[in-house]
């Protein structure tokens, strides 16, 4: 009986997470266009609905009804399945994220995490890196030179920055001694001053930068930057297949925002009079706004400049950070 309840509960949670995050991802695209527009003295979408809010619906209809073009020379099975990998891995990664503090509905305690595994961080990092196969396979199967270039860039960019993000996370994990995100969150329940960002500012910075790179955000979105390689791996995709990549990318952004908030910014612990649930929403919104702000403020970096930054600056810094943390702990 108990087992069935757990299964039902998990399924409901999964559906809710899927629906809410997909909705948030769609809404994030609208917010992104608006924020960018205001930073660039434009208005952004204005014509569909009040302040263009219904642009979202229009885009959705467009994506769903657009013709699904598959190039003649593409490797068809792989070309078709590659877009599914992106959102699939992005949403799978969310299984281990505690979104909110525990709450009680009708006397039933709900833990808003699909599966509380004790190696949560490891699981998320691992699944997120599987997501790399989406652009890689897409680029290689579509027999388009720009797509191939995009795929090649993806592999370099993601592989390199995974090293940085992994090493950056290692230092705070050494402090906490657990890989479960709930433990990490509870570690910081001592109020504002117990946030890990104060103890590990460098790790926070490195992880944030790596987060930008792993979610293909400007200034590191070189795997699909249009001025250079048209649309990268997604050049030949159209309609909903392209839309899947898009949802995957935004879901990844939300995952990274949650990770940063939970690991470094005190997670869903209540703050002053603000309850924890509101607090974490504020944090992830602020971090997503940072994504957009950075996009408006910085030009792109070239692949070689990005590699230089990764291997010659960020990785040594991450190692030094671990070393210092280790010495302090001893």
């Amino acid at each position, binding site marked *: 009986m108990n087992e069935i309840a757990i299964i039902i509960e998990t399924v409901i949670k999964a559906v809710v997470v899927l629906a809410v995050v997909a909705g948030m991802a769609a809404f994030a695209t609208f917010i992104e266009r608006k924020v960018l527009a205001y930073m660039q003295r434009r208005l952004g979408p204005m014509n569909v609905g009040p302040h263009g809010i219904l642009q979202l619906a229009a885009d959705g209809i467009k994506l769903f009804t657009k013709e699904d073009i598959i190039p003649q020379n593409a490797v068809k099975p792989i070309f078709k399945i590659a877009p599914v990998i992106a959102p699939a891995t992005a949403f799978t990664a969310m299984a281990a994220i505690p979104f909110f503090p525990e709450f009680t509905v009708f006397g039933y305690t709900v833990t808003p995490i699909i599966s509380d595994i004790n190696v949560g961080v490891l699981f998320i990092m691992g699944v997120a890196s599987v997501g790399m196969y989406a652009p890689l396979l897409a680029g290689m199967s579509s027999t388009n030179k720009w797509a191939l270039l995009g795929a090649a860039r993806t592999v370099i960019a993601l592989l390199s920055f995974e090293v940085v993000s992994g090493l950056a996370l290692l230092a705070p994990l050494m402090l906490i001694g657990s890989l479960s995100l709930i433990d990490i969150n509870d570690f910081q329940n001592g109020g504002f001053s117990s946030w890990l960002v104060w103890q590990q500012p460098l790790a926070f910075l490195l992880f944030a930068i790596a987060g930008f790179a792993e979610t293909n955000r400007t200034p590191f979105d070189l795997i699909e930057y249009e001025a250079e390689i048209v649309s990268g791996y997604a050049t030949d995709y159209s309609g909903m297949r392209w839309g899947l990549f898009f949802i995957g990318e935004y879901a990844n952004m939300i995952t990274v925002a949650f990770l940063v908030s939970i690991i470094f910014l005190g997670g869903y612990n209540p703050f002053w009079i603000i309850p924890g649930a509101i607090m974490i929403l504020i944090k992830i919104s602020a971090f997503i706004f940072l994504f957009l702000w950075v996009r408006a403020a910085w*030009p792109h970096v070239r*692949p070689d400049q990005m590699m230089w930054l990764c291997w010659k600056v960020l990785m040594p810094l991450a190692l030094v950070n671990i070393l210092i943390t280790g010495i302090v702990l001893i």
Partner: protein
Amino acid sequence: MKKGDNFISKVKEKITVHNIERQTEDQVTITVDRNDLPEAVRMLYYDMGGWLSSMIPNDERQLNGNYALYYVLSMEGGKMTIEDELPQEQKCWITVKTYIPANDPTFPSVTCKVPAAVWYEREAYDMFGLTAVGLPDPRRLVVSDDWPKDLFPLKKDAMDYRHRPDPVDHRDEPDYKFLEPNGSGVVDVPLGPLHITSDEPGHFRLYCDGDTIIDADFRLFYQHRGMEKLAENRMNYDQMGYLAERVCGICGYAHAIGCIEAAEKAVGIEVPLRAQAMRVICLEIERLHSHLLNIGLACEVTGNVNAFMHIFRIREFTMELAQLVTGGRKTYGNVVMGGLRRDMSGTEIKKSLELLVTIEKQLIEVWDAVMDDKAQINRWKGVGILDRQVARDFSPVGPNMRGSGFGRDSRHDHPYDFFNQLEFNIAVEHGCDVYSRESVRYQELLESISIIRQCFEMMPGGQTIIKPQTMIKPGAYAIGNDEAPRGENIHWIMHGNAQKVYRWRCRAATYNNWPSLRYQFRGNTIADAALIVCSLDPCYSCTERVTIVDINSKKSKVLTHKDLKRYSQTLKNHPLKNM
């Protein structure tokens, strides 16, 4: 001793010069035998510090039974070092002319000795069937790939519309032959014509080893509009200026000035000083909005859309300035033989001066902000190097050239109109890269503002137009030059009879910049390809509003931006419904 005589006497030492004709004070044409042509051009180019500015093939069979070639050399010094520049009073144009008999349309290629001639000689074959013997790259350049083999459009007896060749089905169109490097692992990456950042009618093939471009080739002229032919057949001088404007969507005024001044110079018309000053103002306004566009695009191509948008804010002011000077948001429709169509009022001048202050202030502000960004500068520095020797060999023009440390500026070397009376500096940078070019553009913006201000302050009184009473002289020809935003524009006009042009040759600035682009690509990554093309300054055209005049009812209506926007969204109530 007149300008250019010292060079001609040096040429005479080695080569027989059949004839010397002087068109204007600083334009001389020497006629040499066709076998002496390469050596004559080489001597003037390398030994005496000339640059190949244009080459005009001409079908003169009606006049003297021959074809003729005119190699226009701008004598200004090699400029490889600071001392290597001719004194101002010696700078002139020397045109080397040669006749080619109609029954043997070949000539020895100059390209072997002066590489800058390569495109001109390829075009000479396309348009006239004149074969340059020994030309290293004899592929066709201008005409489309399916063009018939024996049809040379600019010959006077070609293009009889009764014998128009049938179009070739697109499946049977031959492919253009690109120069490809051999070797395994060379990936050829296409860029354009519909690449997302260079949606211009130009196709580039980048040959890459991994991410590095090892060589490049390009196919342009997808939209050859046959304007030179059109001018010969149908246009009179009143219409020529307007036709020349349509060469370019953004620096059209420079073309109109070049074309009209060539025609004026050929018959010795002096334009009133006020018109001269206003011509200079318009050219500089054009430079303002064109350079702003290019700096903006160079930011945008590297992903700095914010900078692009803010630079466009400033550009809007320059459009307003153009409106005060010419009445239109662009500088078009103002140039006629003998002066300008529209004069400026005192209040307009006052308003313009106020606008200039705003532009200057905001420009400095935005540029400082862009320069504050290390990431932006890193994207520009060291990219798209134009080697100095390559530049010397291929005669590029404009900011492309000045970014490589050559102080070539038509306003300074061959001052036209009002420029003798103005003070300005030539912006020169020595980095040879995209950063230097953009930096040159920024400095030129400030110079242009200062030039416009000087013109307004010294604005001479009087008329802006005279009636060109002088009879048009058939056979008279001259060069018209000006410094367009992209570099020196050269127009060459030979007058014909019946108020028609016998031959009009328009050489836009970018024509001279293309051949060396190949060298600029080499060694860079694919990521920078679009940026390098952009740093040469491609162009776009835009129209904000339209005035429609119905000739029958004599009614006119101005369609505003609002009307057009509304109509484009609702498709109801056509704005011209009630006309």
